[in-house]
């Protein structure tokens, strides 16, 4: 396959590879890391096996191409094993574990529904996402901040604990009132917990950085949480919390601290 000419000449050393990857992330072209991966095939993770940054870039490459979350997870876990204090690796592990466990949850729910011929009544227990939560809390212990608190909240939300998620998002906003993911996620968590008054008040005081589902705006105007239990518009599907992607967006500053981290 042919790719961007910038990648035609493959940098040989670790530093050069890291600099190239940092540039791609800064330019919001992280998806191109997948191209490097595919060109170098299995040599990519094995190339610099003892460098946690490289292993995390490998995780990112597998993740952004959407091809294999399981391999991305194993790369993130390799990175945090090599360097237990490397907090982005813990955060990546939390994010990837959470997504994989969500997919397993869907699979389990489907299998049960199929077996019984009707919708499953079983809800995921709180432990379903505990590994992801452990990883997120490890990152939090190492580097407390708005983005990491947001991701802790996102794991809680995935497990259906929107009350705990709301607390985590609120804490994130305490660190940084402008953290864009936490701002939107907090509104989603308030909606999910039926706190219409607080949501209305929150939306009155804050201009959110992303377009939220119409139902949120309606809730802000009228108390109709019950009537809005189903998504009526195709764009309203995004009524769940999202991760900050901080684990990979922070990598350029760790590779080349002189540069600023790009906005999420």
């Amino acid at each position, binding site marked *: *396959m042919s790719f961007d000419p910038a990648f035609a000449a493959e940098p040989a050393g670790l530093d050069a590879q890291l600099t190239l990857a940092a540039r791609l992330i800064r330019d919001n072209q992280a998806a191109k890391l997948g191209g490097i991966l595919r060109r170098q095939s299995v040599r990519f993770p094995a190339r610099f096996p003892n460098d946690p940054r490289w292993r995390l870039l490998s995780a990112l490459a597998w993740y952004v191409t959407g091809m294999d979350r399981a391999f991305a997870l194993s790369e993130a876990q390799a990175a945090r094993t090599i360097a237990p204090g490397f907090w982005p690796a813990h955060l990546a592990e939390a994010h990837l574990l959470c997504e994989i466990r*969500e997919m397993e949850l869907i699979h389990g729910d489907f299998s049960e529904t199929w077996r019984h011929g009707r919708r499953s009544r079983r809800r995921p227990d709180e432990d379903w996402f505990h590994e992801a939560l452990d990883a997120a809390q490890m990152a939090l212990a190492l580097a407390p901040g708005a983005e990491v608190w947001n991701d802790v909240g996102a794991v809680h939300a995935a497990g259906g604990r929107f009350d705990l998620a709301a607390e985590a998002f609120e804490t994130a906003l305490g660190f940084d009132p402008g953290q864009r993911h936490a701002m939107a996620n907090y509104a989603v968590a308030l909606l999910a917990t039926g706190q219409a008054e607080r949501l209305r008040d929150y939306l009155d005081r804050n201009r959110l950085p992303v377009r939220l589902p119409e139902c949120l705006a309606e809730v802000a105007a009228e108390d109709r949480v019950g009537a809005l239990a*189903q998504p009526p518009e195709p764009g309203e599907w995004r009524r769940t919390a999202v991760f900050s992607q901080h684990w990979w967006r922070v990598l350029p500053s760790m590779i080349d601290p002189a540069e600023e981290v790009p906005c999420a």
Partner: protein
Amino acid sequence: MRLSIAKCVWGARYVRTMLDVNLPSLLAPGNVPAAAARLPLEHLLVTTPADRAVIEAHPAYQALTRLIPCRIEPLQEMAATPDYMGQINQMNLAHRQILADCRARGATWVFDQPDHVWGDGSLDHLATLALRGARCVLFAGIRTNREQMVPILENWRGDATGTGPVMAIGNEPLLRLAIEHMHVHDQIRFWGPRFSTIGAHNVSWRVGSHSFLRRVFFAQPFLLAPPKEAVEPQRSVDLDYVERAYAPEELSTIANSRDFLVVEVSGRYQFREHTPYPLTVPYLAAWTRRWITDRQMDVFSTPIRFQADDTPEHRWQRMERFSGRIEAALRRSHALYEAQTVLAAERPLLAALLGRLLRDDHAHRRLALPEQASFFAPPEPVLAEWLELSGADLRTAVAGRLVAGRVVTRRDWPGPVRLPTLAGGVLDVYPHAGGGVTVGGVHLTPLDLPGGLRLYSPAAILADVEQTLSGECLE
């Protein structure tokens, strides 16, 4: 007539999948050997030079070359981004290459992908349809987990002596495996489970332990005769090409997996597009209204049976009726969306009422609207009060003024006509000679809205709506 089994492939992972399962399944007795005995058949592969060397050295490909003519054409490479969308764009370009090749040779394209597994006998069934004059044959493959499927399929490898690259698995065992190892991508397109998808390209309903019914908006074409006019796909072969290249009467859908079955194998953790809400009529109505054409809605009306057990016929029919009612509800909802637009300018309260009902899944399930219905709207102050009600109370209030059919005629004058409502009560209606009615002392005038709904509403304001309707809707 000649058939060309054609596909594109590049990259170690997809080449491996093709060599491990796709080509071996094509070699099954009921596929290439059977079809080649009935009509000219060839195999076309579009790939890169590096992948070509690997493919040509593989026993499965060599076995295929001994059965039918096989060609490998170089892939026209593009400067694509290497993410998933980049791959899709590259694939679409390769499909244009294949379409041009088929057009030049007058061949009918048997659409294939490197991650397809063909049930034994499926290709022969396609050949049969081609010989009967089929122009474009549609089906919907099942996506499965590669990590589970590929090792299990090894149990079906080998010819009569238990050796060789052939993989002969019948449609029923293949379907059983596909149900057991179905990918989340397909699981979230079932009616019932708590999770569903953002984009319901198809919808399925469980029928038995190893059977389900599927209706499809975006059907996959598996047989494409050269179209009467040269047409290029703008987005992809299955998204827009079929609609642009073939007239409705040229399409046929394979309706039973016992005749034909192809499954795809994909990474277990690929394709994450779920939403934590089940499929509902309001969601599907909103989504289809935005993304689905009338032609695709028509394709949805043909149910496909995926059948690998002895589920009795009456259960299939029951599910066909049930899913058919959902299709009817979607069409009705589309019309009611139009009605809501018409009402929005002059009757915002009625429009808001309709809007709330359209987003209420319970309303769709419990207010089973007949094909023709009449609604006797209350005065505006009452309507305003209704809008403050909870969902359940609102449904009850509406049902108390909703009547099946177009029930009042001038011959009923002077009344009263006692009409049974959908809430189980009775409504006393006094017809007028001019077509209007009086209900509860309020004079109402009828207006036919899209969706088979006759609205009786206070006369003065309705005149404005009528004007809007004649100006915008009937043009």
